[in-house]
């Protein structure tokens, strides 16, 4: 082997080494999102993000996606709709992310829908309600198990009707999410021939609900459907306990955000007894799927360090599942092309730690898996009681049901 050949081989080795080095150091797949870290939605946002981070760590431990590590690019949207359009523009144009996850909740998500539709981007929705109903983006997939828009109201009012309820009271926060729910409840009540005897929207700045609850009880409704946000939910239940809603009421609750979070649940304790409320995951026997138990073992440990919701039932497993959906789509299609991924997500059923997920044409779950569960036997100041089955008995949907409604509401509170 002459000197020239040796030099040629040496040069080739360096070149090949360089190429294989580039393979090993391929840039990570960036997933961008904003998440509420401060403001009213922060408790949920932090728990959701931890769920997504646990998925990221799991997938990276398994070698990443398409042989590339997964990196999250996250900004705090301060729970504000005013922040998200600029954040998502930055994620796309400056950070050059490969995939997008939506922010937690409806209000911050709604303003970015026109942007993603205009640019033809896949967007994994994170617990917003009906933000795609008017936009009609065909690359939107909401991880929340809401299903058809009226499923919450149909389930709750249906339970009330079965218990003999004939009249309905609606109390909803004057914000997008709650008003959407109140609207569907009005439609369902009208369709079912149930007169609405009380219908009020309260502003988000309301701090004291005694007067509102007094007016509500004066209307003598049988079914009370409440769509509220975390600070209000606690204040409403306190006022209900003090002022009372009347002996007529068969079922109370429905769509109270906050009663899914450990801090609020611990604070309210026995005040929640009897309330029937929506949820997404509960430690009931019907709710365990492949990987669920392992996820919560990891979450419980990391939640303490991260100072987030120690239970994390409502959002965290869905954050993890959102990652699982992307993982399954990318692995199956061997692609990061947004249209290819969207097509796969639309056409298949995906097995996740929250159960099988199938999307309808609007990007919401084809069939609702939103739980309506009744608080029972809850004691004060004890967070660990919520880790065992029986404290929130699932009444709906039938395939996940673990008990029947206890009514009237005043009896169920005992």
């Amino acid at each position: 082997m002459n000197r020239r050949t040796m030099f040629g081989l040496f040069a080739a080795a360096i070149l090949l080494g360089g190429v294989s080095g580039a393979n090993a150091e391929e840039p990570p797949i960036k997933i961008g999102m904003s998440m509420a870290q401060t403001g009213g939605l922060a408790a949920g946002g932090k728990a959701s993000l931890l769920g997504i981070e646990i998925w990221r760590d799991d997938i990276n431990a398994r070698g990443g996606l398409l042989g590339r590590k997964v990196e999250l690019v996250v900004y705090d949207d301060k729970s504000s709709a005013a922040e998200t359009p600029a954040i998502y523009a930055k994620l796309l144009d400056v950070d050059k992310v490969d995939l997008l996850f939506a922010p937690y909740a409806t209000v911050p998500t709604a303003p970015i829908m026109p942007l993603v539709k205009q640019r033809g981007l896949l967007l994994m929705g994170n617990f917003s309600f009906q933000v795609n109903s008017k936009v009609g983006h065909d690359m939107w997939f909401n991880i929340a198990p809401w299903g058809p828009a009226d499923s919450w109201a149909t389930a709750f009012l249906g339970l009330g009707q079965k218990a003999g309820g004939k009249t309905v009271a609606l109390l909803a926060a004057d914000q997008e999410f709650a008003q959407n729910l109140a609207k569907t409840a009005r439609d369902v009540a009208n369709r079912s021939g149930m007169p609405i005897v009380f219908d009020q929207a309260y502003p988000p700045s309301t701090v004291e609900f005694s007067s509102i609850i007094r007016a509500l009880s004066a209307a003598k409704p049988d079914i009370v459907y409440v769509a509220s946000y975390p600070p209000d939910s606690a204040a409403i239940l306190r006022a209900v306990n003090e002022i009372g809603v009347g002996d007529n009421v068969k079922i109370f609750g429905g769509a109270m955000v906050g009663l899914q979070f450990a801090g609020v649940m611990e604070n309210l304790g026995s005040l929640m007894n009897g309330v029937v409320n929506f949820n997404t995951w509960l430690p009931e026997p019907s709710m365990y799927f492949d990987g669920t138990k392992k996820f919560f073992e990891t979450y419980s440990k990391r939640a303490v360090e991260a100072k987030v919701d120690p239970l994390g039932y409502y959002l965290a497993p869905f954050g993890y599942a959102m990652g699982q959906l992307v993982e399954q789509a990318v692995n199956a299609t061997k692609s990061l092309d947004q249209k290819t991924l969207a097509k796969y997500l639309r056409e298949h059923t995906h097995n996740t730690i929250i159960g099988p997920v199938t999307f309808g044409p609007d990007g919401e779950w084809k069939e609702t898996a939103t739980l309506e569960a009744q608080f029972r036997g809850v004691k004060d100041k004890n967070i660990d009681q919520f880790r065992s089955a029986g404290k929130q008995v699932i009444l709906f949907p039938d395939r996940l049901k673990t008990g029947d409604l206890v009514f009237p509401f005043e009896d169920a509170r005992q």
Partner: protein
Amino acid sequence: MFSFELLRDAIVLGLLLGCFYAAVSVGLSISFGLLDVPQVAHPAFLVLASYGVYLCNDRFDIDPLLAGLLLTPLFFVLGLVTYRLYYETFERRGSDAAVRGIAFFFGVAFIIEVLIILQFGVDQRSVTAPYIGKAWRFAGMRIPIRQLVAFGVALALTVLLATYLSRTFLGRAIRAVAQDEEGLRLMGANPVRIKQLAFGIATAVVAVAGALMIIVAPVEPTLDRVYIGRTFCVVVMAGLGSITGTLIAALILGVAESIVLTMFGASWAPAISFALLLGVLTVRPQGLLGR
């Protein structure tokens, strides 16, 4: 659907709510009304006090009201330090101190909010006491006992402060500094020192008001944003610096809000405070009992 029973309940609940509004506004009436300090961090101090009370109640099982009282010396010192910082960096340096002072106090409010989030997280916090979550049945009404407690404490606080400011030497000096700082200086008193003491008292009062805040409803770190409009509305409507006016304005606001919530619908409630403010200022530009 109108009923006299509903109206009666609305008025009673409104009076209780009004007294609570008076308690959370009375500190601001001194700092902003009497001292002309743009204390926009007042609601953030209230939230900070609420978290202090929460800590005492949760860790040491101390009654929230007692915890509020125990925190008053700490908040008095906090007030002294805050005013001295504000005075040295803004007030002493020029005539546009008030404008720049707003930025200073907004900064203080944000720092408090972030510190609370770092220490306690973003979850709601509440306290336990025998009078929370129960109601007193009276003449067919159910009155929340926590509201009665807030009513009593707020009334006592207002009367005490009004008496202190009108009957004691330091109280009269505080009123004097609000009216004529230069005149007070000519009398041999140090207006800066008096203002600092007054700001300390205003902040000490916040400790008790913060206790009432967490007794009435759970708190979370950003709750100050809900109260900023209401507290300033009460103080301006009362007439700057009038403690009795603060109580009257808060009662009017509470009753009006409660009647609107009960009889006309909750959507109108936020408009009520500012509609009343505009109405009062149109008739009496100096406020209800303003100088």
